[in-house]
């Protein structure tokens, strides 16, 4: 028997792994991978709510997760283009060494 709490626990664990990856990696692509993991956890929550919570129109949770996937795709495209542009500028995508905006 799958219950709502089981889905929420899985999503919480996935979110914290994503948070750890996003905060601890030095490579810009690594940080992006953590963000994608967190967005996946959020989507899993939305799908779980659409499946188990009482609602006049339960399909809305799935529509929301489609929108989240859309925004994640746009974000990934821009972030990876930024990574390539930064690499051309500094020959590195190590975020510890990115200080061109420093005053």
């Amino acid at each position: 028997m799958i219950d709502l709490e089981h889905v929420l626990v899985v999503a919480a664990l996935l979110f914290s792994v994503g948070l750890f990856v996003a905060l601890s990696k030095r490579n810009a692509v690594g940080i992006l991978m953590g963000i994608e993991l967190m967005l996946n956890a959020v989507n899993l929550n939305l799908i779980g709510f659409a499946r188990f919570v009482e609602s006049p129109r339960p399909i809305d949770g799935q529509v929301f997760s489609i929108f989240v996937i859309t925004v994640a795709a746009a974000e990934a495209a821009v972030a990876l283009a930024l990574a390539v542009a930064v690499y051309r500028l500094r020959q590195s995508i190590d975020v510890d060494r990115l200080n061109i905006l420093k005053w």
Partner: protein
Amino acid sequence: MEDTAVVVAFYVLVVVTLGSALMVATVRDLIHAVLFLILSFVGVAGLYITLSADFVAVVQVLIYVGAISVLMLFAIMLTPRTGRDNASVPFAAPIGVLAGLVGAVIIFVAFKTEWAKADGGNSFETTAAEIGRALLDPFVIPFEVASVLLVVAMLGAILLVRPGSGGDAG
């Protein structure tokens, strides 16, 4: 609907998803990390199917497993071999504690809250048709805004990596 096979599939997919997410955090090579990330995305798509969201599962495979992973692999391969390190910052342990605390708080709230559960859950007969109707009736404005966002993101990405823009001239 709710038979043992679905439950077993759910827990197997949970193990696959969380295990490969942990491998993303620990493995040393960035290419391997992306490959484990793809496995994690596939696991989440399987979880969507067990939660009767088949259209979203197909979209997940198309967008995440298909597009975003290929984009990441290309971004890694456009940078040389020395840039493929998946190292953590030196103070990774407190970050791990912080992430664990956040997860613990979310789990605590999830069990503490009285969710308004539907009896036996909502089962969807055809999700694609219902999602299509929802996108064209109550969600028209967000739908159009999302298309504008995609166009802007595409133009921005092209502009950023075009030779002659930013940094050295390509």
